[in-house]
């Protein structure tokens, strides 16, 4: 009796998650090779999804984290932005703090969020009083542990600078020209505390325009 298509696919899907339900002979060379190809595709997609972050790690760490991610069901997404979102979220809790790799990971997440916001969100500023504000949904502030220019240069083969104190803050938001810029001390302080009462209305208004801050819904 031939299984229905729904049963065939459901059993195959569960088998891919490790259950003993495979409708195909799992010992056949063809099935084993299919699993090898699948593994290779998942690892390849993961590497493509976080290439910049991985380039800041040793090869051993790269392979370990990619393997661990794929072992936990990663690498399946057909679209790179989807895979990036998933893999960067995985890496963000695995990478040491502080480290340049973690900074690049957070930067990649922030950039993706700001890019999404730039195509779907129009920063809204109420006229007159600034009113109640909060961090923009598509905004982020990322601390660098060295000069950001030097860290970014390392992505292109430059020498990686030593880790220092969190000295440079970079803002990411949909309304910023190019989606990011260096934050001033006042902006970083405002972002950290959202102590709007201590900030000038002009500063808050400017950040509202860029989507760094937003009015609560």
């Amino acid at each position, binding site marked *: 009796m*031939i*299984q*229905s*298509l*729904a049963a*065939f*696919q*459901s059993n*195959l*899907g*569960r088998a*891919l*998650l490790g259950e003993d339900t495979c*409708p*195909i*002979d799992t010992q*056949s*060379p*063809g*099935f084993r*090779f*299919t699993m*090898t*190809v*699948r593994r290779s*595709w*998942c690892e390849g997609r993961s590497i493509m999804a976080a290439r910049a972050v991985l380039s800041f790690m040793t090869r051993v760490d790269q392979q370990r984290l990619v393997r661990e991610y794929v072992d936990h069901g990663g*690498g*399946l*997404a*057909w*679209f*790179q*932005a*989807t895979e990036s979102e998933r893999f960067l979220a995985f890496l963000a809790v695995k990478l040491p703090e502080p480290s340049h790799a973690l900074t690049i990971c957070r930067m990649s997440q922030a950039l993706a969020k700001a890019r*999404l916001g730039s*195509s*779907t969100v129009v920063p809204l500023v109420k006229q007159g009083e600034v009113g109640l504000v909060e961090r923009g949904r598509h905004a982020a502030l990322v601390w660098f542990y060295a000069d950001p220019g030097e860290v970014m240069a390392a992505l292109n083969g430059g020498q990686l600078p030593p880790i220092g104190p969190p000295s440079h803050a970079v803002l990411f938001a949909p309304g910023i020209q190019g989606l990011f810029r260096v934050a001033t001390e006042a902006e970083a302080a405002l972002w950290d505390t959202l102590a709007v009462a201590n900030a000038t209305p002009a500063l808050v208004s400017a950040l509202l325009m860029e989507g760094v801050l937003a009015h609560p819904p």
Partner: protein
Amino acid sequence: MKPFDLDPRRTAPGRNPLGVGFGCHLSLPEALYTADLLDFVEITPEIYHRAENVEDCIRLLPERTLFDAALGRCGSLPIVMHSVSLSIGSAHGMYRPCLEMMDRLQTEWPFRWYSEHLQFQTTLDTDGKSTETGIPFPLPATNEVAELVADRAAFIQNRYGVPFLLENPAHYLPDLPADPDIGDEFGLMEAILLRSGCGQLLDLHNLYCNAVNFNLNPAVALSRINMDRVGEIHIAGGSWRDGFYMDAHDGRVPEAVWDLLEQALSSARYIPAVVFEILDEYLERVGPDAIAQQLERARNTWQRYRAVAQVGA
């Protein structure tokens, strides 16, 4: 049996035959994308889109910079669309965002025809949620599959008002379930095409891979294809790994596949298009000169048999 005809001499008056096509690879020199070398471009639209969750609904949104660059590169040449995310054989349903993307492309970047792969890449998990399989899987050769896919293929062809083609996939799985009257992958494709009125995208390299891996004679395998329903041919290169010949799209077309192209074109009444496929990551290794040579050889071969077909018409 529903009719299928891609011959522009009968179905699309005023349209010229297409010829030889190639994918849109933005890292290659722009000079490759001229009518001197190419007759059309085959676009894989997912390359220029990203999946975003917009108000709890997945949408494929254009990566605007990339999309506009592709449009600028290929906009002057005829376009056919070849998507990769539809999962037409998933029992629980096709990938709806892919169809919505195609709806938008129909006006934003009109296409001569649309093709997809005869396979599935999503299943339902135990909670009833659609999950990705990580790699496309072939479909069982059953009447249930033939009816399901034929209904969907006919729906798509009707939705876009252009021919819809299904590509025969490469795979490594032995002994897939099959109904006796369908038999195998060839019988499944034929049953779907006859029921739907759609066409086949005959991937000769996929056919060659399956023949090599399942110990079939490639020429005999090709003789099982109903050439009257072939609307496009793919050729590509591959490589060996762990004792299997892979559809890797990683280099030049092997001579055995060129032989199959000759056999296909010589036995067909009319084939509108031949496309050379290669993945982006192998472009640098193969190089633009070798790619241009592959395209020239494909074009010479296609033109030779087209001339014969015209004499015989």
